[in-house]
């Protein structure tokens, strides 16, 4: 029998080879092939914009992933600008590197890829590298601070917070100046739990209808990337789950999965399956959180209680495994924390049954209700806008783009598991809600398939480079004692080089870029968090709404501020 799947895979490999050949002809020596999915291209500052345009138009790199500055050269003045792009047909990722200095402004990419706007503003905030046509304003750090945080020679000084920040909008080119002057500007502080974290929305209103709007972020900026540069690999672990507390194991999976790939550590099958179970449980938890918040914004208090009850049931199962409700460090380097306790699997299966019944019960009541449809069938984000902004995950799929990293570049056992990728049509709030409901049901099916075929064996690797020895061995065996001191004194040391690893988290593509100099601490860590890009598309979505609906718009995108601000 003819196998379509295999044919598709062969086509993909051929297409990718063709693309790489073309790229090699064009860039020659400047192109280096890294791992199978990442290539890196070095360009000169003079041809930077031209090459990016060429990559977008001729080579099909139409999805913007990330832009950041890295000080891989250790002199404190010269930096490297890195842009990461994705070709959605061949799933080829490319990192374009360009040397820059703080003296000369770099051409801005925000016209080619809209999503680069906040990234470029962040680059000025963190490293002092300025871009053409990008205002030199703080985006994450408080206004009035001196210095640039992520530089290696940064020293914090006491400062006075600048209170009078100008929030006015520039004149709207679509309307006449007199009409524009009749609009009023409002600031909306959402600090009390309306949305997932503190956010400020600034909107321009005419006749109670929002004409333009944008978000101000930075209220929960904790400097996670700076912290990561000063800690050893073991010490980073507790910080990972506190970035986005609704899905802690996603960050751990992206981080530890990347390090294991880089070091070439193989983890046992049972650990892989358990990691997938935790990730999918987190996905359910976060989607339930989103639905609960939408329900809360519409004032349907009984349904909020239902969703919170479902979330509680997930937390109780997590607690049974790790001892902590939220933020339990479930995934560790080289496997998972421990094997599952007795009776945990039965409890997990019971949970799946409970959740499926409850989710169907709740969504049956609200999905077709007229009030729900009337309030949610608005705030459209079409597929072109979504791709321009770099929106990924359920928000992108709600706009009709079929891109799920679990399907296109599967890790672990996602290849062997049957599940479907739900798609929306219009990209309205209602589509985003429906996609999330369907993804919950798909995740339930994935977990039940995994638990049915859970492999037997160890849950931690036996690799000496990353293994923490057991305590009783440390007291009796010399080798274990040496390993113990090596692990807790210096930690795991990554060899010199760089890598990027990404997974499909509950909000979209979540990635870690890591650059190491072969020391016990890392040189540069950059997070690609999906919320940073979904937050920017708020500008396009909020038009035509009223001020009371703003939390609804933000919650339908599921903006987690801890993830955006880092």
């Amino acid at each position: 029998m003819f196998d379509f799947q295999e044919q598709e895979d062969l086509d993909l490999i051929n297409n990718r080879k063709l693309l790489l050949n073309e790229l090699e002809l064009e860039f020659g020596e400047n192109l280096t092939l890294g791992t199978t999915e990442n290539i890196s291209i070095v360009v000169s500052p003079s041809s930077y914009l031209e090459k990016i345009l060429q990559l977008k138009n001729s080579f099909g790199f139409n999805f913007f992933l990330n832009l950041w500055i890295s000080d891989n050269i250790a002199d404190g003045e010269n930096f490297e600008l890195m842009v990461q792009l994705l070709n959605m047909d061949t799933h080829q990722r490319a990192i374009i590197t360009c040397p820059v200095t703080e003296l000369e402004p770099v051409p801005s990419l925000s016209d080619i890829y809209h999503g680069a706007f906040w990234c470029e503003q962040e680059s000025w905030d963190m490293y002092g590298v300025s871009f053409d046509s990008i205002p030199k304003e703080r985006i994450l750090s408080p206004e009035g601070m001196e210095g640039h945080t992520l530089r290696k020679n940064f020293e914090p000084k006491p400062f006075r917070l600048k209170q009078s920040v100008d929030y006015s909008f520039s004149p709207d080119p679509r309307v006449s100046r007199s009409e524009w002057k009749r609009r009023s500007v409002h600031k909306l502080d959402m600090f009390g739990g309306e949305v997932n974290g503190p956010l400020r929305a600034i909107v321009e209103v005419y006749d109670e209808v929002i004409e333009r709007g944008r978000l101000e972020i930075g209220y929960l900026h904790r400097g996670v990337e700076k912290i990561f540069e000063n800690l050893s690999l073991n010490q980073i672990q507790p910080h990972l789950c506190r970035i986005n507390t609704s899905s802690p194991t996603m960050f751990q999976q992206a981080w530890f999965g990347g390090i294991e790939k880089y070091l070439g550590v193989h983890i046992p099958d049972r650990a892989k399956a358990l990691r997938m179970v935790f990730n999918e449980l987190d996905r359910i938890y976060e989607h339930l959180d989103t639905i609960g918040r939408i329900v809360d914004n519409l004032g349907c208090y009984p349904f909020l209680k239902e969703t919170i009850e479902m979330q509680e049931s997930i937390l109780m199962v997590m607690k049974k495994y790790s001892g902590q409700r939220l933020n339990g460090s479930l995934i560790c380097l080289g496997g998972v924390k421990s094997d599952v306790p007795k009776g945990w699997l039965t409890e997990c299966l019971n949970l799946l049954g409970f959740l499926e019944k409850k989710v169907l019960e709740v969504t049956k009541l609200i999905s077709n209700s007229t009030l729900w449809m009337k309030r949610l069938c608005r705030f459209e984000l079409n597929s072109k806008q979504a791709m321009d902004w770099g929106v990924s995950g359920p928000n992108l799929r709600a706009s009709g783009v079929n891109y799920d990293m679990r399907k296109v570049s599967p890790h672990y056992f996602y290849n062997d598991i049957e599940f479907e990728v739900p798609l929306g049509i219009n990209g309205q709030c209602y589509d985003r809600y429906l996609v999330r409901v369907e993804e919950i049901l798909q995740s339930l099916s994935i977990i039940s398939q995994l638990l049915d075929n859970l492999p037997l064996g160890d849950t931690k690797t036996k690799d000496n480079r990353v293994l923490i020895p057991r305590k009783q061995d440390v007291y009796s065996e010399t080798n274990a004692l040496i390993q113990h001191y090596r692990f807790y004194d210096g930690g795991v040391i990554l060899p010199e080089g760089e890598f990027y690893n990404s997974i499909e988290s509950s909000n979209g593509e979540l990635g870690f870029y890591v650059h190491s100099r072969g020391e016990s601490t890392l040189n540069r860590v950059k997070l690609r968090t999906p919320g940073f890009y979904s937050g920017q598309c708020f500008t396009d979505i909020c038009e035509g709404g009223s001020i009371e609906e703003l939390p609804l718009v933000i919650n339908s995108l599921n903006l987690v501020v801890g993830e955006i601000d880092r």
Partner: protein
Amino acid sequence: MNSNIISEVAFTANSESFLKKWNESILQDELWPFPVSFSCCASELRSFRGMQNSSSYVDVSDISRPPEKADLLIVGGTISQKIAPHLIDIYERMPEEKWVLAVGACASSGGPYWTHNVVQGLSQIIPVDVYLPGCPPSKEMIIQSFEAIRERVAKKVSALSQTRWSLNV
């Protein structure tokens, strides 16, 4: 609010004293909180909100109340330099008698974030009544902390009055 209190206070001639008594009777019943919560502690406060029923001492189900009408400020989560002035503003807008609860390690002491941009504890900017440890504390712990607040309210002791007393203001 039981009907006895209404009948008790309704016969007073002075409207000002009537309002005062009314306010006191409300205070005896429950505190009106103003929750400001950011990161992981926000999810725990949320799950506390989900399990809450009407008989509870502190009612956080209605979050649309302005700070002028609240008397308990609940702060959970990391306090960055950028949000600190807003917290001071909320605190100053609250009425004269007020209590403050710091939920979680970050609000109590800065937590694991020893960076330039994180305020190392809520007490650096406003006086705090009750600190609640944990990262994040469970909802049972949050209920217990309300008991501690209730004791202080019964004795009419607050961190603000104590600082005033010590400064002789």
